[in-house]
């Protein structure tokens, strides 16, 4: 007979074995998970627990040489909405828009953000709140649950158009920037897109800090674990004098022009103006298509910094370089005289002097004084392009200048080889044309300023804009930092004397540039650069007057100068697009600019009134 209890006991023991086995196996599995795989899982847990967020560093500021801020960070306020802190989002947004008007674009963006982010991520309602808006939001806070005002930072350019080309501007980073440097994806980060903002990006940007936070599974911050303060971007101090810059802009007025004021002893750029200009702060929040098209289609090219990117034929301002090249090559001496009958024939082509009656017998100094074209046709023919190019390059023409700006163009001093590289044959007439700075010669206003600085000081000065980074004064700031040029002093003397005569002697070509200051003289050189060949028939008709041409066909007006003549300190270049004649249009501007520069010179300002500087006799060499 089967015993019910016996069967049960045997089978219950089997069940117990299974129970103990299963639970034991689970204990074993627990051991594996907690100790064997523990290290790996602990790392995952750490990742679960903490969230690292980067803190945007404050961008370095940009100042002028006296400490006036040219680019600064301004605290800005924006209104955020915490979706999880309100029950009726639509009603809150509706009430908010009654306080701070939101346009359709804003509404669409808010709606999109609300759909895509989690409830605990704030959504921006409105950026760049005014003080009044803020006050109204705070006042209505009880009826705006979930709305909070957040502090951000925007870039401020106090001088707007005045310094736009030099300082540049910042804009939100694009996808390429972010791919290169992921810290740029931080909210509020900006990238320099032009000027100093662009070239000094690495200095100004700084290093982001980070904060490690304990978060829960919903991503909500529970507490802060660790904080690494970032490195604020370094401040940059420019050589610019923003007061002078303003004066220069004022003098240039609504002309399409460019002017550079430079310290001819150390290459510091005191003012660099290009007109017209643009408002750089528009880029911070994004430029509208309409605005962009307006700028891009403007024939006056407001976005282009003409001082470094504008290429112009130098015209007669090139003659000192031709003179120095010919002297250096020994093709002529300063005393050699050539007859100017008003024209110059070569290879069956007649080249005219600007003065159709001619200048008679002229030496180099007088040729510069009168800006005689025939003299320089002859000089160029005698020495050829190579010495002119060599000396011109050493003077800063036709070479890339190492200034801290983007899009710096080098210009060109043409030679037969250069012409051949471009697939053309060089004619003798090309040399003759280049002798008076026409034809293929092209320079920038900055190059002209560098060139006249080097003539004035005899030093190989390098134009630069940065005086100090984080209060570390640049090594270029010293007055004797630049080495002497490899050009004999007597050659320089002839050219300087010629330039002195241009301004100060009777019958000089630019009497309007003579300074009104009691004891300071300026030396300069005019230039008028044709943008269109004048037809022979028109010239010979005797009715040629460039003032009758349409604006865009008129010659450019140029002037270069330095002062004081006996102890050169400042150099100025002025280019007025389609300004017609350098002597009439550019020279008076240069005089105003140089006067202002001299008046602003700290040594003049500290001088007691009434006392005058002893005047030296100009070197007539």
């Amino acid at each position, binding site marked *: 007979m089967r*015993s019910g*209890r016996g069967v049960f006991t045997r*089978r219950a023991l089997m069940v117990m074995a299974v129970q103990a086995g299963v639970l034991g196996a689970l204990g074993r599995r*627990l051991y594996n998970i907690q100790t064997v795989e523990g290290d790996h899982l602990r790392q995952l847990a750490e990742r679960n627990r903490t969230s690292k967020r980067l803190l945007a560093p404050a961008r370095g500021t940009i100042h002028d040489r006296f400490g006036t801020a040219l680019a600064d960070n301004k605290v800005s306020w924006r209104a955020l909405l915490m979706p999880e802190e309100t029950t009726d989002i639509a009603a809150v947004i509706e009430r908010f828009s009654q306080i701070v008007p939101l346009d359709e674009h804003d509404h669409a963006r808010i709606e999109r953000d609300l759909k895509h982010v989690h409830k605990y991520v704030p959504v921006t309602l409105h950026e760049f709140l005014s003080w009044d808006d803020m006050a109204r939001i705070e006042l209505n806070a009880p009826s705006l649950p979930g709305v909070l005002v957040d502090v951000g930072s925007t870039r401020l350019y106090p001088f707007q158009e005045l310094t736009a080309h030099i300082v540049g501007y910042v804009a939100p980073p694009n996808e390429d920037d972010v791919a290169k440097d992921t810290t740029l994806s931080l909210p509020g980060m900006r990238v320099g897109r032009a000027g100093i903002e662009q070239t000094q990006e690495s200095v100004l940007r700084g290093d982001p800090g980070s904060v490690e936070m304990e978060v829960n599974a919903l991503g909500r911050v529970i507490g802060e674990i660790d904080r690494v303060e970032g490195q604020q971007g370094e401040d940059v101090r420019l050589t610019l004098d923003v007061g002078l810059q303003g004066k220069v802009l004022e003098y240039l007025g609504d002309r399409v022009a460019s002017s550079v004021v430079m310290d001819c002893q150390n290459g510091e750029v005191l003012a660099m103006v290009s007109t017209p200009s643009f408002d750089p702060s528009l880029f911070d929040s994004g430029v509208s298509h309409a605005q962009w098209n307006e700028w891009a289609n403007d024939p006056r090219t407001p976005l282009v910094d003409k001082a470094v990117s504008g290429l112009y034929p130098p015209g007669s301002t090139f003659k000192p370089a031709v003179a120095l090249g010919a002297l250096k090559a020994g093709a002529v001496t300063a005393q050699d005289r050539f007859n100017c009958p008003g024209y110059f024939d070569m290879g069956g082509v007649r080249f005219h002097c600007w003065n159709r009656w001619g200048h008679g017998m002229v030496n180099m100094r007088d040729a510069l004084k009168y800006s005689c074209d025939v003299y320089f046709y002859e000089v160029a023919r005698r020495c050829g392009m190579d010495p002119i190019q060599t000396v011109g390059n050493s003077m800063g023409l036709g070479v890339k200048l190492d200034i801290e700006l983007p899009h710096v163009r080098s210009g060109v001093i043409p030679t037969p080889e250069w012409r051949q590289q471009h697939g053309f044959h060089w004619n003798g007439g090309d040399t003759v044309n280049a002798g008076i700075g026409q034809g293929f010669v092209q320079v920038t206003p900055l190059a002209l300023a560098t060139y006249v600085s080097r003539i004035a000081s005899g030093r190989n000065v390098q134009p630069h804009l940065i005086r100090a980074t984080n209060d570390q004064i640049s090594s270029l700031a010293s007055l004797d930092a630049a080495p002497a040029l490899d050009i004999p002093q007597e050659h320089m003397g002839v050219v300087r004397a010629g330039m002195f005569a241009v301004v100060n002697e009777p019958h000089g070509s630019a009497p309007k540039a003579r300074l009104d200051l009691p004891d300071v003289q300026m030396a300069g050189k005019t230039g008028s650069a044709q943008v269109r060949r004048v037809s022979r028939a028109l010239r010979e008709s005797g009715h040629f007057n460039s003032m009758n041409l349409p604006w865009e066909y008129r010659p450019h007006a140029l002037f270069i100068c330095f002062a004081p003549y006996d102890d050169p300190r400042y150099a100025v270049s002025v280019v007025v697009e389609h300004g017609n004649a350098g002597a009439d249009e550019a020279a008076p501007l240069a005089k105003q600019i140089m006067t202002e520069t001299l008046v602003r010179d700290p040594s003049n300002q500290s001088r007691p009134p009434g006392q005058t500087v002893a005047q030296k006799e100009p070197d007539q060499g």
Partner: protein
Amino acid sequence: MNAFGFLKSDKRLLRAEPDFRPMARLLQVNWLYVLLVCLLAGVGYIALYSAGGGSAKPFAGPQMVRFGFGLVMMIAVALVSPRILRLVSVPIYLFSIALLGLVLRMGHVGKGAERWINLAGMQFQPSEFAKIGLVLMLATWFHRIGNERMGNPLRLVIPAILTLLPVVLVLKEPNLGTATIIGVIGATLFFAAGMRLWQIVILVAPIPFLGKFIYGHLHDYQKARIDTFLHPEHDPLGAGYNIIQSKIALGSGGMWGEGYLHGSQGQLNFLPEKQTDFIFTMIGEEWGFAGGIAVIGLLIVLTLGATLIAMRSRNQFGRLLGLGIAMDFFLYCAVNLSMVMGAIPVGGVPLPLISYGGSAMLTMMFGFGLLMSAWVHRNERDPGFEDEDD
């Protein structure tokens, strides 16, 4: 002391005639086992205190109040005579089936499944109750037919139907985990009641084919659970999230744990359902392997203790009743732990007496009451079936 003597054989007490006075029966209650049950509930209290963020609210306090009720109920049920239990087993079983039918009609939808029913304002899960009903029903049935008649397959047709009925109803809810548990409990009782070996072979052989058939009829979310179990990394933020987070939390506990109330994953809410199904993960994270294995040890003692209690009964009803409850408790533990450790697909099976939840706690305590009744009345013999082997 007989109170602590369930492992010893006390001939004098075993031979004693049962005393039906309530006080005498109260003394017969196995107080050591009651103590172990209280210990487990104590573990639950401590764990829920941590799950509540270091506070008795909102989990630990209410849970203890329910345990208090459950404990009183357990003792009360322990004093009920098996004869009465057998009488009420059929109504209880039918009532539980009726509730299952009701939940299908008007059940409260929770987590994609109809499982809950509102009974006098209390959330109630009829499938929990159905397990107890089935255990009572089968124990009564097999008690009536006795071991001798188990050889007749026709005698097994009705209990098989009685088992399959709740299984199918729970499966329709659909609650795969509980349906499986009910089925395994029923099968164990068939097995322990003395089912012949050849019958077992005939029944077990077609299971693989049945499994395939069932998988074909599973709901998508159930299939998804099986798929995520097999490849949790495919869906780390979806259905696989629970398993991955659970393992991460356990792993970060290490050997000695991160300290009570200092489990980062649990306290920071990375753990889903940490107060209910995943309470063991929280324990493992904060107390480490040392604490986790201690809890598992306690579960083993309670499981084997319940099975031993069943073995000590001198009547078939008490034995099967005890084993059914032991299996119920064991399967809860095994399924929950396997789920938490990623060994089987996730299903809503709580860890008994530790997980937060009223109906699971009360039905479990009711079950423990039945178990204790089997112990208290262990010396009642089957009429006409004298045991000779002790």
